[in-house]
């Protein structure tokens, strides 16, 4: 059962919250005195007005039902995207509302795919807003809502699980609001640290702020057309790569390390080890490949390979060089890394490392079952973390669903005339919230030339991927809407 008044009650608070975030950018615009003042002011006022109008029919919300929770997450994301698109739309740097919406959802879902041909033409305050959306969407706007607004009580768990992939059973604190607060605090501390590091490395103030937001949210929007390559600084590349690496780690683990000071809990984590192993392995192979084809000297090959692997695997999507000119094996590995993604409970997208590890173990179990048919095997992530059959089942379903979406969306893109390579990489890059793909949407190109229909398909892919498919797609099941 879905009660409209209940949703509207929460959405009114939510709109006011978005308005507050827009207001921050508006203040930045005032400070810089650029042409972003008017669009940001308009957007702030509109979001605030909608929030206040929804509050007029004052009927306080009650505990959310299961379905309301699921619906609220999707609707909240759409509402935030809509308000987030307004400043872009009013700025006249975007040719249509579709483009503005695409840019906004790409920002909030931390995809980082852009429709702008010339990023640098945008006023600095709008560049700020673009990267700010990455930061908000990275840890999750719903999780932020739970942390800041005391109004979400019991139903909060429903929302939290729908948005935050690491919510298996491992809450850092018993109360959900406390958990959300703790996660956001760690996120903020890391962001500030990154900002200071970038400033020390010689980056300008606005550039450092924007790239801090972008890297911690594993988004990928940059203030430059050439992305990180524009700075031409190995130190900056290393700093950003390192913090993307951190952002791709489960924030529960960061909590164990930073707050509880239990490094053993941190380093013994199976998912983290697999994550570091994969990044290390892919980096080394790509570096060797680059050196073999004499594209770079060994140190440079290692530098580019590391940055690009981290950037794609954590679904950041920055580029420090045009990897489309790389050899086929290197390109393939990056494409494969898109599917893996970061750890659960991180700001990264993708299928998530824990799922990949589990998947290989489920496959391994099947082999062992064939060998000894009557033996009973359980699937474990680590020695004391047995995975229930229910979880295994939902994992397999999720992977299946992800591939279904992947094929359906790629097919739709080719149907409107997008070439094959572009279609599949654009879909994967959107679904797993990475940003650049290959072909006509490679690191040096953008998404502007795609047909409008293709853009809307990709918008849906980005949101579906950010909310881990089920939350969004269940809304298309008729039974959801029945009493």
């Amino acid at each position: 059962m879905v009660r409209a008044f209940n949703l509207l009650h929460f959405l009114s608070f939510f709109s006011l919250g978005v308005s507050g975030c827009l207001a921050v950018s508006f203040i930045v615009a005032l400070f810089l005195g650029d042409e972003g003042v008017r669009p940001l002011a308009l957007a702030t006022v509109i979001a605030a007005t909608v929030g206040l109008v929804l509050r007029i029919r004052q009927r306080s919300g009650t505990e959310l039902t299961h379905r309301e929770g699921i619906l609220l997450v999707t609707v909240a994301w759409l509402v935030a995207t809509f308000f987030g698109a307004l400043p872009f739309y009013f700025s006249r740097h975007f040719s249509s509302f579709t483009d503005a919406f695409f840019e906004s959802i790409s920002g909030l879902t931390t995809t980082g795919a852009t429709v702008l041909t010339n990023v640098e033409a945008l006023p600095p305050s709008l560049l700020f807003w673009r990267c700010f959306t990455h930061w908000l969407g990275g840890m999750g706007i719903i999780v932020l809502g739970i942390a800041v607004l005391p109004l979400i009580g019991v139903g909060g768990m429903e929302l939290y699980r729908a948005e935050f992939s690491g919510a298996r059973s491992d809450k850092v604190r018993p109360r959900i609001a406390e958990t959300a607060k703790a996660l956001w605090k760690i996120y903020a501390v890391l962001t500030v640290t990154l900002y200071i590091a970038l400033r020390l490395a010689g980056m300008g103030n606005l550039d450092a702020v924007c790239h801090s937001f972008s890297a911690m949210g594993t988004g990928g929007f940059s203030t430059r057309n050439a992305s990180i390559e524009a700075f031409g600084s190995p130190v900056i590349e290393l700093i950003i790569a390192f913090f993307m690496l951190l952002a791709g780690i489960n924030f529960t683990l960061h909590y164990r390390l930073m707050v509880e000071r239990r490094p053993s809990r941190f380093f013994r984590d199976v998912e983290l080890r697999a994550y570091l192993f994969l990044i290390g392995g892919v980096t080394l192979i790509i570096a060797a490949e680059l050196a073999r084809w004499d594209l770079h000297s060994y140190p440079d090959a290692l530098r580019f390979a590391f940055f690009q692997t981290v950037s794609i695997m954590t679904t950041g999507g920055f580029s420090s060089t045009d990897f489309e000119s790389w050899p086929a094996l290197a390109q393939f590995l990056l494409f494969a890394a898109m599917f893996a993604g970061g750890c659960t409970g991180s700001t990264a997208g993708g299928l998530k490392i824990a799922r990949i590890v589990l998947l290989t173990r489920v496959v391994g179990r099947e082999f062992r079952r064939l060998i000894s048919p009557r033996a009973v095997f359980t699937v474990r992530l680590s020695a004391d973390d047995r995975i229930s059959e229910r979880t295994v089942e939902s994992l397999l379903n999720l992977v299946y669903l992800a591939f279904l979406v992947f094929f359906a969306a790629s097919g739709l893109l080719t149907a409107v005339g997008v070439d094959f390579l572009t279609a599949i990489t654009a879909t994967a890059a959107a679904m797993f919230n990475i940003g650049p793909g290959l072909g006509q949407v490679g690191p040096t190109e953008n998404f502007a030339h795609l047909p409008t229909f293709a853009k809307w398909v990709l918008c849906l892919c980005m949101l579906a991927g950010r909310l881990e498919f089920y939350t969004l797609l269940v809304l298309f099941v008729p039974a959801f809407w029945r009493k």
Partner: protein
Amino acid sequence: MRILILGGGAVGTLVARRLIGEKNEVTIVEKDEARCVLLQEMLDAKIVQGSASSISALERADLAHAEMLIAVTNSDETNILSCLIAQAHSNVKIKVARLRTHEVDRWNAICGQQYLNIDRIIHPDRETAERILKVLRYPGISAIHDFAEGAIRLFAMGIEPRSWLVGKSLAELGAESPTQSSLIAMILRGHNTIIPTGVDRLQVGDQIYVAVPASDFNTTLDFLGITQLREVERVFIVGGKQLGIEVALQLEKKGVAVKLFERDLARCQRIAEIVSDSVVVNGDGTDQQLLLQENIQGVDAYLALTGDDEVNMIASMLAKRLGATKVAALVNRPDFIPVSQLLGISATFSSRLTVVDRILQFIRKGRVVSVTSFNEEQAEAIELIASAKSRLVNRKLKDVHLPKGVIVGAIGRPSGEVIVPRGNDIIHPGDRVVFFALERLVPALESEFILDKSRGNRWFARSTSFIF
């Protein structure tokens, strides 16, 4: 406060819900996987799947940082074992365990010792038996709670269709009262709990809670038209579970003739070995033929105490029709309690709610002496010792702005004097004070009363509690 609850059954869940509502951080350890999923959806708490007696499971539940442990799994052994682990592995300050064994007295004797150090053992059957025994003599009364060490009594009675109280306002009652010392603290009307004022009128089917100094108890009963039995002579108990046996044993001691009905023959034989004078009848205590044969007509009390709520409710109705003077039923599911009142079963007891009440006393900070909750936990009676720092002491009650939905039911002075206060009375430091409050106001009330906070009068005008 960080609280660890072991066992996510009915009691664990009820306690957890209350504690979470009061802003505590609660972790629950539950064995059953499906139950864990359910708890995760219901409660804003951390749920850990595992055995409560497993050290590694307790570690996962962060035992080291817990300040309180509540062991309410359905196994006594697990509960004790987990307290033992907590004693060895952490510095949990307060430990509460539920035990069901009939050897509870022996356990009470050893649980305070160093190696175990359990602060409170809660025995659901014994505590419930005590509640049942209190009301047996008064057919019209469904519950009696004592406060201030017995100086203040709170009793609950249903308003019957032929009672002279129907339609009276509290103000009218007050004018006629002979003692001028009692107070209607609460009216339960279906699903609603009302903290009444003078203009509220009593209706048929209401359940009213009356606070009265123990010395005026009998006079007040006469005034309200409640008959008292001079003596309870014959009692029927249905269901030979531990609660039934406990009640039978207590009644025997007072020389009451008890007949205990149990369907299982083997169990009957074992019960017969435990009890001395009581008659154990092998048969269905809801069978009309059997009841008539055993002469139910004119029995003083019929207690339906089987493990099945529905059976207890139906059996009570049947017994009432067959002529039992007083009937009482064990109804454990809280959502059945209002329904049973609609069915005319005035006295219901829930061992789960009894346990919840007892546990909550330990959680309250400050000097709370006892807590009793009513009507699906919508309202609470809280007994506290007034602190000198509270802003309620040393002032006339009419000048203290209590929120609507809270009344001061009674004050017990250290001298032994007990009053049901009026506007001009003053609470002194050290007095025992009984409040009646809607549950949602309890946290605010506690912080106002216990802590020294001058937050100003953000509450509305004082509700006029009506004394009669």
